[in-house]
């Protein structure tokens, strides 16, 4: 752990030292109004997307976990899917749906004589596209917390005369507030560091965000790393502020909901309204998951988009192409190793910060949280600088990618696990200590199984990020370590959208398949334990 934190700090330091060298970059950025505009856009769009994603995620989680909506399991898995669609593909699907002139929705509206109602190239469009991509993260975190909540807390509220909605608003949500906040801050932070969507949707109308600026900065010559670093620091400051606000909001409150008085799981029964709720969720899913997936599928099977003629060529290439085979293998190896390592590290860090009184644990948490919102592109650059100057030959191997991914995203896992850990009554661990277990075995036998839902969702979460992560890999890969996401990006760069679509389908299937495997496996294990 100290090694890892050192390493992470090393990354940050490399960037920091650049800043120190070129202090005028700071003044350049400060003096230039367009950077301020980018900052403003970032804040506006991120807050908008965060709010929307949080509302959607929380409502979904509550309906799917705490009520008897029909087919909740299936709906939940479907609702998770958007995170397996790489953001830039998802954004493109939305271009096809919501672009002026040719977007499906506009074609429909025009057909109905309603004119062109939607334009995806607007603040709202960007917010919507980003929000539906990050809403599943909020949903996963909140759902894990809801699963761990003692239902008698809700029952007591109902007895007190609160109806279901008010029970949810006054009791359930505040009790899982750490998770909701966690999810919200996470979505904010993902959003400020996101680059595919704003590049695709924002640039055309010159809605620049800080990440877009970093991206263009790095595409230029000569690159101004100073400005990149300053912009990255901007984002870091934003995320530190967000985290600080979160800590402040939760200060001094306790959210223990898993007590030693065992609870009996119980869900809220909705009468006929459950079908209405289900219908609304289905509608949402059609809009956000099924629609885009169909669009992508249609694209994958078309000779070219909207050609009207279909072909298997783009799909058969998935198993005939050597490129696909090797990059797929790389992707799977990198993703699984990195996701597992990230989750383990994330759990350890949260456990240390939540449960121990170890000196320096605040610093540890701070260091881990710092890279949270540095755009991957900038972070990867830091990583490559760092390892280029290190004597070990990690550079150019898959390990540098893995290290980069872990360093950049471990805070996501920390976030997901911490909020769940806060729910576990310490006496459950203490009783194990008294039973004669050291802290390590206590964690293994008691804590881990109890926060398993959160661990799983955090694994699935980072897995989904990694499988489609592009900008982190971009500066770090070589031909041997090329990943699927790079392949689709390259394919995209040369205008082969149909192939890109079929690659995305592959990623989607991979993601959904792994998620399905993980959940069934753990459900079986859980069933065996019960």
């Amino acid at each position, binding site marked *: 752990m100290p090694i890892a934190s050192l390493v992470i700090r090393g990354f940050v330091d490399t960037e920091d030292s650049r800043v120190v060298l070129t202090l005028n970059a700071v003044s350049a950025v400060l003096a230039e109004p367009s950077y301020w505009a980018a900052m403003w856009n970032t804040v506006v769009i991120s807050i908008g997307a965060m709010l929307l994603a949080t509302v959607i995620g929380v409502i979904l989680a509550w309906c799917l976990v705490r009520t008897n909506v029909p087919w909740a399991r299936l709906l939940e898995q479907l609702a998770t899917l958007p995170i397996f669609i790489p953001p830039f593909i998802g954004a493109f699907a939305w271009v096809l749906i919501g672009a002026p002139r040719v977007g499906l929705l506009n074609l429909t509206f025009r057909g109905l004589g309603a004119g062109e109602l939607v334009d995806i190239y607007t603040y709202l469009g960007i917010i919507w596209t980003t929000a539906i991509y990050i809403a599943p993260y909020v949903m996963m975190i909140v759902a894990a917390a809801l699963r761990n909540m003692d239902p*008698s*807390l809700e029952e*007591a509220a109902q007895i007190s005369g*609160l109806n279901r909605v008010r029970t949810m608003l006054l009791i359930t949500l*505040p009790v899982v507030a750490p998770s909701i906040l966690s999810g919200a801050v996470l979505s904010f932070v993902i959003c400020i560091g996101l680059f595919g969507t704003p590049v695709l949707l924002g640039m055309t109308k010159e809605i620049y965000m800080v990440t877009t600026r970093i991206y263009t900065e790095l595409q230029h010559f000569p690159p101004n790393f100073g400005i990149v670093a300053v912009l990255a620091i901007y984002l870091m400051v934003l995320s530190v502020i967000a985290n600080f606000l979160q800590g402040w909001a939760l200060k001094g409150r306790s959210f223990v909901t898993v007590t030693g008085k065992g609870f009996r799981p119980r869900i809220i029964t909705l009468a006929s309204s459950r079908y209405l709720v289900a219908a609304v969720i289905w509608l949402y899913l059609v809009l956000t998951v099924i629609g885009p997936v169909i669009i992508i599928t249609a694209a994958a099977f078309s000779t070219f988009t909207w050609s009207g003629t279909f072909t298997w060529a783009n799909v058969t290439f998935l198993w005939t192409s050597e490129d696909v085979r090797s990059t797929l293998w790389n992707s799977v190896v990198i993703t699984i190793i990195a996701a597992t390592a990230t989750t383990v590290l994330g759990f350890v860090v949260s456990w240390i910060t939540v449960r121990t009184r170890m000196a320096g644990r605040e610093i540890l948490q701070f260091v881990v949280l710092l890279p949270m919102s540095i755009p991957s592109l900038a972070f990867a650059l830091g990583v490559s600088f760092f390892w280029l100057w290190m004597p070990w030959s990690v550079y150019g191997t898959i390990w540098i990618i893995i290290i980069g991914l872990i360093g950049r995203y471990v805070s996501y896992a920390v976030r997901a696990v911490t909020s769940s850990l806060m729910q576990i009554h310490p006496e459950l661990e203490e009783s194990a200590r008294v039973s004669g277990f050291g802290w390590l075995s206590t964690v293994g036998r008691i804590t881990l199984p109890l926060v398993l839902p959160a661990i799983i969702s955090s694994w699935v979460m980072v897995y989904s990020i990694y499988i489609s992560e592009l900008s982190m890999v971009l500066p770090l890969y070589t031909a041997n370590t090329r990943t699927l996401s790079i392949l689709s990006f390259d394919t995209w760069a040369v205008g082969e959208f149909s192939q890109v679509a079929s690659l995305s389908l592959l990623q989607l299937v991979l993601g959904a398949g792994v998620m399905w495997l993980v959940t069934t496996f753990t459900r079986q294990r859980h069933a065996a334990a019960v």
Partner: protein
Amino acid sequence: MSVQVRQMVKSFGTFRAIDDLSVTFQSGKISVLLGASGCGKTTTLRCIAGLENPNGGEIRIEDEPVFSSARGIDLPPEKRRLGMVFQSYAVWPHLTVKGNVGMPLRAQKVPKEQIERRVQETLAVVGLSEQADKSAMKLSGGQQQRVSIARCLVGNPRLILMDEPLSNLDARLRVEMRNEIRQLQQRIGATILFVTHDQEEAMSLADEIFLFNKGKVEQQGSPEDLYFRPAVRYVAEFLGKANLFPVTLRGEAGQTAIYAAGSDHLITKGDIVRPRGDEALCMIRPESWQIGLAEGDRVGLPATVLEAVFVGDRRELHVDTPIGRQIVVTPGHQRFSAGARISLTIASQQIHLLPDRL
């Protein structure tokens, strides 16, 4: 607010926690539910509150059906307008003590100032005024339990369900709380269903006791009824301590002689309510035995003290007699040492005969 339960069944998987339960809890009375651990008391309360869905049967509150499997009625908990104290407290961790207690009033949309006042009053009743602004999770076990009681009482509900509400309080506080509950019940005429394992509590609080056994009511009645006139052995043994032994009845009505079965030890003689037949199970409460003067006295049952346990106001003697082991309770200040020989007598009115010999 009377509560009527008809033919209620509640199964968990194949296990019948409530087994065809029919019972009426009277309006404006305190009904105490007693029974062994796991016999279905909590489940009964939860079904009445609407937190658990019975598999069948009907529940009426004040004649209005709130659940009926036949008619497909199932009122949600918040519509049943009752108060409940949970066995696990269910104190909301994100709120302060005040926030917890004020919630039912907020649900009723009571104006702010009034909430503040009533919360303060109720907290004073449970002795938590000083903790009002503490986070609920920083309280000791007993304090949390009191928060949960205050939360239940604050809205003056007409029907109150309490699941072992005083189990973590000390004796003194418990008596205070008990009196508070009594007074409240008299003031607002509430109907209270009260689960407890503390028999003293049960006896002193109950207008009627319902003794549960395996998901059914074994016997119901006033505390004295159940204590002095248990219908079956289970009740006699469950409630308080009982000396039970088989006896043979001789002589005619009005002058029945009771002999320990299979021996010629005369227990007592007198005007005794006889069950059918000559064989019966005799119940003598430990405090009913009179300790005779001295060793060698031929009047009573000779007994040897095996063990004398001091329990404060009483001393429990475990004695060996020709008719088997007996428990005798004497005031705490009377001392006995193991091995002491005493004799026991019993007044005939203090004998209760049970029909079965099992």
